[in-house]
C-alpha cells in the first residue's frame, strides 16, 4: 500500500497543479511530474477520475478525504503491473500454475484479468464488477477489452456468487479484489460469503484475497479466513501495507514446490514486472494475528467500524 499511498499523496498534493499542467500543454510542452485529469466519469457509486502523473495513468475513486488509486498503468510499458499488491496477487499461480477457469471479483482498471488472459489464452475468465462506469472507463482508458475467454459481469459479487453456486459454476482460481474508495465492502468479508465462494472452487481450486494489514480489521479478517479455510499463505512483502491471503481446497504445497514452480514461471512473469522468485520466502504459514478476535459474519460485520478502531 505504500506505493498506493505515495501515489495518493502525490495526487492529493497536486490537484491545483492540474490546472497549471493544462496550461503547460497549451504552451506545447508537458512535464511528467504534474497530475492531469484526463477524464471524469459519473457513477451511481462514486465518481471516477482518470489522472495522469509521472507517466502513469491512474483510475481514481474520488472520496472527500482524498483520492484513492484503484489501478495505475505505466504509459510507456502498459503491460507492467504497477502496484505491488497486483503483482503479489499472481503468487496464486504458485499453487495453481495452469488455471482453466478463473473468477475475479472487482475489475478496477483490469490489469489482473488482462495479464491472466494474455498468459493463459485458453483459460476462461469471469470478472464481476458492480459499477458499469468502472467497466466503461477500463475499456476506454486502460486497454481492457472482453473476448471469447474474458467476460465482465456487471453485478454485486455476493449476488453473482450465490447465483453461480446454484448454476453449478466452478473455478480453479478465485481472486477477491473488490474495493470501494475505502476498503472491501462489508458483505464481502463475512464467513458466509467466504463459504459461498469456497463452494465455487474445484477440487484443487485456490482463493486469493487482496487485503490490508494496517488496521485492527487484520485480526478479524484473519480469524474469519482461518475458520473457513484452515491454514493459508499469509503473504506480505516489505514496504507494503498489503497482505494477500492465498488459500487452497487442498493441503498447501511445500516451500520446495513453491520455489521450483516460481523458477518455471519466472520468465513469463518478467514481462509484467513480477519477480516471482522472491515471493516464496514471504509466503508465511504462521499465525501472527490475535486469534481471540471475533470472526466476521452476516450477523456481525461492522467491518469498517473495526477498521477505524486502531
Amino acid at each position, binding site marked *: 500500500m505504500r506505493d498506493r499511498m505515495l501515489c495518493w499523496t502525490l495526487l492529493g498534493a497536486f490537484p491545483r497543479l492540474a490546472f497549471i499542467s493544462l496550461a503547460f500543454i497549451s504552451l506545447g510542452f508537458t512535464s511528467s511530474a504534474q497530475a492531469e485529469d484526463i477524464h471524469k466519469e459519473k457513477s*451511481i457509486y462514486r465518481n471516477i477520475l482518470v489522472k495522469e502523473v509521472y507517466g502513469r495513468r491512474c483510475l481514481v475513486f474520488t472520496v472527500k478525504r482524498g483520492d484513492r488509486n484503484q489501478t495505475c498503468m505505466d504509459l510507456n510499458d502498459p503491460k507492467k503491473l504497477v502496484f505491488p499488491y497486483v503483482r503479489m496477487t499472481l503468487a496464486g499461480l504458485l499453487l495453481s500454475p495452469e488455471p482453466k477457469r478463473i473468477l475475479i471479483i472487482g475489475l478496477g482498471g483490469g490489469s489482473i484479468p488482462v495479464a491472466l488472459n494474455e498468459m493463459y489464452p485458453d483459460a476462461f475468465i469471469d470478472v464481476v464488477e*458492480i459499477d458499469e462506469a468502472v467497466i466503461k472507463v477500463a475499456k476506454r482508458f486502460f486497454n481492457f477489452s472482453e473476448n471469447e475467454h474474458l467476460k465482465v459481469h456487471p453485478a*454485486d459479487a*455476493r*449476488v453473482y456468487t450465490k447465483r453461480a453456486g446454484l448454476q453449478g459454476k466452478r473455478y480453479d482460481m478465485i481472486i477477491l479484489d473488490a474495493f470501494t474508495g475505502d476498503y472491501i465492502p462489508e*458483505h464481502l468479508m463475512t464467513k458466509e460469503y467466504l463459504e459461498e465462494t469456497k463452494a465455487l472452487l474445484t477440487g484443487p481450486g485456490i482463493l486469493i484475497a487482496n487485503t490490508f494489514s494496517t488496521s485492527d480489521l487484520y485480526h478479524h479478517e484473519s480469524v474469519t479466513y482461518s475458520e473457513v479455510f484452515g491454514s493459508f499463505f499469509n503473504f506480505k512483502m516489505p514496504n507494503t501495507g498489503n497482505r494477500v491471503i492465498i488459500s487452497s481446497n487442498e493441503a498447501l504445497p511445500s516451500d520446495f514446490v513453491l520455489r521450483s514452480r516460481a523458477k518455471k514461471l519466472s520468465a513469463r512473469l518478467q514481462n509484467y514486472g513480477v519477480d516471482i522468485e522472491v515471493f516464496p520466502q514471504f509466503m508465511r504459514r504462521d499465525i501472527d494475528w490475535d486469534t481471540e478476535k471475533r470472526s466476521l459474519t*452476516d*450477523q456481525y460485520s461492522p467491518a469498517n*467500524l473495526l477498521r477505524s478502531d486502531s
Partner: protein
Amino acid sequence: MSHHSAQRLFSPLVLTLAFTSGFIIMSVELLGGRILAPYFGSSIYVWGSIITIFMLSLAIGYLTGGRLSMNQPSLKRYGFFYIGAALALLPTIFFGENMMDAVFLRLEDPRYGSLVASMFLFFIPTVILGMIAPYSVRLLVESAHESGRIAGGLYFVSTLGSALGTLATSFYLVLWFEVNQILFTMVGVLLFAGLVAIFGSRYLTPSQKD
C-alpha cells in the same frame, strides 16, 4: 396513587411510547440493509427497495391508525399495536433467510428481488408501527385549537426517536451486537411498551371532551 395524579402521567407515557416506536422503526430499517445484503448486495437499489417499502408501509399505517382512532380510542388498544408489532417482527427473525432463499431462486433481478424481500420482511411490522403515530395524536388531543401543537409535539418526539435509532444502530449497536440480537431486543422493548400501555390503561384514560 390517586386517579388524578396518575392522570398527569398520561401524556408523558404516550410521548415516551411514541419516541420508542420512532426509534425502533429506523433501527429496523437500517438493519434491513444488513439483512438483505447477503442475498441482494448492498447497492443503492437495495436501499431504494427498503426505503420504498418502509414509506409505503408507514403511509398505510398512518391511514389505518387514523381510522382506528375513531372507534373508542384507549390506551389499552394502543398497547396492542406494540404487542402486534413485536409479534410481526418474529417471522422476520425466524424465517427471513428461508423467505429470501425462495425469493432469490425466483427473481433474477436483484432490484425486484430486494423489493419483494423487503415487502415480506418489513411490510406488516412497519404498517403496525405506523398506526401508532396518528393514534397517539388522538389519545392526547383534547380540543381542536391545540390539535396542531399536540401533533407537532408528537412528530417531534417520534422523529427524534427515529434520529436516535438511526444513529445508535449504525454507530454502535452493529458494532456491539449481532443483527438478530438487536432485533430480539426490539421485540422485547415493544412487548414491554405494549404491556406498560395495557397495564396503564387501568389507571389512565384519554380525556374526553368531544
